[in-house]
């Protein structure tokens, strides 16, 4: 019996997309599962932190397409336009029935709009879509700076959010500010802003933090021959300190945790009631 199927008998191949994280350091952070997604894809798109990392990725797959060029020259194109183009170019391949892998540096779902959006669009159109986590800049920060977010809490904000929106801060927890190097960019086109913009940020932060409070400026490594860079200054000095777009600012807590005596009493009463109940039942 002839079991060969004609092309019209075959089901239409269904496209899919997996957004994976490459981690922060070339070669050190890629998970086996993310590598498998890359190797099994028909097409790989890449938005990476470093051109060398992109070269390394190209060794894993013959068809790696960089998304960097969509930024243009970085002078007059709103970044949201770039990110929408990324979604469209990826979805074009998914709709064509391709198995697509989109590779982002760090974690694909952290401070990244396109991966979430392309997964939403793909699922809405009936395609399989999946996100595979990666080691993020936040993860590296905890290790390199020595912060445990569970100790007294940790709040993260894209720095510009604090300027565009009235955002309550908790000075009892760590404050981590991302993309301070381009804080306050109303145009959404620039890749850096100057001291005047950082001064506005400092003015906002000074409502909750004294100006002599420590500010830690952190940049993680992206190549295995690099070490993280950690600089310490004060909030007052922040405007006059050069901060690049890939650096992160951390403000340690400025207040101690305050015990909630009323709730503690309530919890003690619950404990006592449970012990009493256990003793009564056990005594029968």
């Amino acid at each position: 019996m002839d079991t060969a199927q004609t092309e019209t008998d075959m089901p239409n191949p269904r496209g899919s997309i997996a957004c994976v994280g490459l981690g922060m350091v070339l070669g050190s952070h890629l998970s086996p599962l993310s590598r498998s997604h890359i190797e099994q894809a028909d097409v790989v798109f890449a938005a990476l932190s470093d051109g060398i990392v992109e070269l390394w990725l190209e060794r894993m797959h013959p068809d790696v397409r960089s998304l960097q060029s969509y930024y243009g020259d970085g002078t007059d194109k709103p970044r949201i336009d770039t990110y929408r183009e990324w979604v469209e170019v990826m979805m074009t391949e998914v709709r064509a029935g391709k198995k697509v892998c989109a590779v982002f540096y760090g974690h694909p779902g952290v401070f990244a709009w396109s991966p979430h959006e392309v997964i939403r669009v793909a699922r809405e159109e009936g395609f399989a879509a999946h996100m595979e986590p990666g080691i993020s800049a936040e993860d590296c920060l905890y290790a390199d700076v020595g912060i445990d977010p569970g100790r007294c809490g940790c709040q993260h904000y894209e720095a510009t959010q604090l300027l565009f929106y009235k955002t309550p801060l908790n000075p009892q927890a760590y404050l981590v500010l991302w993309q301070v190097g381009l804080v306050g960019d109303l145009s959404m086109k620039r890749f850096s802003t100057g001291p005047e913009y950082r001064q506005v940020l400092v003015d906002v932060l000074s409502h909750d933090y004294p100006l002599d409070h420590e500010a830690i400026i952190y940049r993680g490594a992206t190549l295995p021959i690099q070490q993280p860079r950690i600089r310490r200054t004060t909030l007052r000095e922040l405007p006059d300190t050069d901060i690049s777009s890939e650096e992160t600012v951390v403000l340690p807590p400025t207040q101690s945790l305050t015990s909630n005596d009323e709730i503690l009493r309530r919890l003690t009463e619950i404990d006592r009631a449970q012990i009493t109940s256990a003793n009564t039942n056990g005594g029968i």
Partner: protein
Amino acid sequence: MTNTIDLLESIATDASLRHAPAHDLEQMLDAMHASDALKQAVRTGDAVHVKIELGGKDGSVNQNPPPSNIHMPPPPPPPPPSPGESIIS
């Protein structure tokens, strides 16, 4: 000369290399026939030497910031009318 990308991957996956002092790493790279650019990058801590060696290709966040959350600020309020100017255009 050993391929620089291969060596970077070797360093990235070997704990004794990844966290070796720069001087020790440079000696190890010398024994592994690494390029001068890679050894110079290790010595100086500046990856630009490797970028030049690999063709100067640069898609880094130094020029292109990472994808960020999209914040849509409300449009700025219109400027107040200057004295004598009608607010009705």
